[in-house]
């Protein structure tokens, strides 16, 4: 399958009064045509920054793209001017944000927010675009779409707003849809509706999806492949089965063990990961997970592990997989 997006050695920093925050520190991943890739990690791990950098939504300064490239259909987005980016945003790449209330324009009718990109990118007339907008609202399951198109976002419920945002994101049939925590602000029953809708629409339009979330349940439900991020780096990446059933990085393993499951026995204690993530103003020299890792070795303190192939395109950045660490690895394999 051809890659629609390739992120190569991306480094992003924010310049703040306190110093340079190295939010993303050399990440690599790709998204194939028609697949869903999940980016998971805790708050501050750089997952949202990565997503927003693909759309180049981060203001420069304070943001600085220090190094690397983001290849979308073979073209480097980091080399594009703002004008060129405007042709791509909303047209080739659509985005759904976490909070539907703050990301819709409160002073603009919902219908117009959809027609905006249709008129600009597809050159439709206002009338055509309005018809298409109603069609889109219908497609995302909003009842009475002709009436709803003339309403403002505050007249919508949370779930409906998220549906409207999906309609906007999909208006121009983008090749790539980036969903940044699309269901975090929603209740479970509404979350189920939205996830179902995203799957349906993907089957219809064949768009690739990047879904950013901290909810491992959502990942298991939606994704083909997973990128696990920690402290601005990729800790592990692989297919959803590889990540859930054969995690090769202690952080991934810890993450999976720290969530309760409905089929777990009661009173079985959870296995939390001790401590907190490192401060990215002063990122550690060695492995960023060193301080919290129960398998940490001396080498982890001073040397950063690279992403190594584990077989079947499953990669992890961990010294445990080095041949010299074989005795240490036994405890981990269990």
């Amino acid at each position: 399958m051809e890659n629609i997006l390739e992120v190569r050695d991306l480094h992003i920093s924010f310049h703040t009064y306190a110093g340079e925050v190295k939010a993303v520190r050399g990440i690599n991943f790709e998204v194939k045509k028609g697949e869903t890739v999940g980016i998971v990690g805790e708050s501050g791990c750089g997952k949202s920054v990565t997503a927003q950098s693909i759309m180049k939504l981060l203001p420069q300064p304070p943001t600085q793209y220090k190094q690397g490239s983001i290849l979308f259909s073979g073209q480097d987005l980091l080399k594009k001017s703002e004008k060129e980016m405007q042709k791509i945003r909303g047209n080739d790449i659509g985005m759904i944000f976490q909070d539907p209330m703050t990301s819709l324009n409160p002073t603009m009718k919902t219908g117009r927010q959809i027609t905006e990109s249709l008129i600009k990118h597809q050159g439709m007339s206002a009338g055509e675009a309005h018809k298409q907008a109603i069609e889109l609202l219908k497609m995302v399951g909003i009842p009475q779409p002709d009436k709803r198109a003339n309403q403002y976002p505050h007249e919508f419920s949370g779930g409906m707003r998220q549906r409207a945002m999906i309609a906007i994101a999909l208006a121009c049939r983008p090749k790539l849809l980036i969903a940044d925590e699309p269901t975090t602000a929603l209740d479970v029953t509404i979350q189920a509706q939205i996830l179902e809708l995203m799957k349906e629409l993907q089957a219809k339009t064949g768009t690739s999806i990047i879904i950013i979330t901290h909810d491992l349940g959502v990942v298991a439900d939606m994704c083909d492949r997973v990128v696990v991020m920690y402290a601005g780096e990729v800790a592990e990446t692989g297919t959803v089965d590889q990540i859930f059933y054969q995690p090769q990085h202690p952080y991934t393993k810890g993450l999976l063990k720290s969530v309760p499951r409905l089929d777990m026995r009661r009173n079985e204690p959870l296995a939390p990961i001790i401590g907190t993530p490192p401060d990215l103003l002063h990122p550690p020299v060695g492995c960023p997970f060193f301080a919290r890792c129960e398998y940490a070795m001396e080498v982890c303190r001073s040397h950063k592990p690279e992403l190594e192939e584990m077989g079947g395109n499953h990669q992890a950045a961990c010294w445990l997989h080095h041949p010299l660490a074989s005795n240490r690895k036994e405890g981990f394999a269990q």
Partner: protein
Amino acid sequence: MKLTLREAPAKKDKKQDTLLQVRNLKKYFHTSGGTVKAVSDVTFDIKVGETLGIVGESGCGKSTMGRTILRLYDATEGEVLFEDKNVHKASTRELKKLRRDMQMIFQDPYASLNPRMTIGEIIGEAIDLHKLASGAKRKARIQELLTLVGLKPEHINRFPHEFSGGQRQRIGIARALAVEPKFIVCDEPISALDVSIQAQVINLLSDLQDKMELTYLFIAHDLSMVKHISDRVAVMYLGKIAELSESEELYANPLHPYTEALLSAIPIPDPEVERKRQRIVLKGDVPSPMNPPSGCHFRTRCPYAMESCTKIDPVWQEVKPDHFVACHLYNKDIMGADVRKIR
């Protein structure tokens, strides 16, 4: 089959003592737009030493209920009996005594700690109010509490902004424990925390429960976490309790269609399971509590809704031992011979 050796005696003990009784509790808010019926007529008991979980979607009234039980809000109707004392009829002096027994842990660890007070002052405030200790004893007590919740005694002079979310939640727990309460309302104590930190706080809460014989009312919207920590679980929908049962039983045999849908909506962190699952996706949104539907509140989204659901309020009935549900599908008078076979 479910009775393991460990649970049997504990269950017996709990049966005997009821710590808290909630009877027909109602809490309405009068706003310019009309009356919001946040909690409309809930009745249940909490037993000594148990954790009762409350789940439901936002706006279902679970937090309002928790706060009304503690009399942070005055009840519109109904009563709350804590060790047979009526919380909502207590005088100021009696209430102060009750406050020592009943504490709360809040959802937002950023908003619930005064940013201008040190950790020592925050925890010490409760000790001073109830005149529990002073001087060196007071300081020792605060440091002991900090150690108990997994912080360091030297943190006593620091300010809240110097701590992470998980640590702040620990401070909130220490503050609640300062007065040696018997009962704590935990209002979404982990919702604002990261996954790896959530487990730390949950384990701390269970350890403390064992050590100090605490009783919890645990409010959350994360059903798997609630199942993990609770002995019994109540499911709320639009101000009412739809179903209440022992937690294993509730998750294995949900009776109310809402519970069924809610359980099926949670994504399970296991791709194999997710691929095989048939999900019940509810249509539409939760109606406004200002104008709840007639009859059963859930009927507008219920896949099994019938004629009688629009007219008659479902009765709260014990369908199986210790398993309560409010749904016409289990009412013999309405369903006749069609009454749903109870699994």
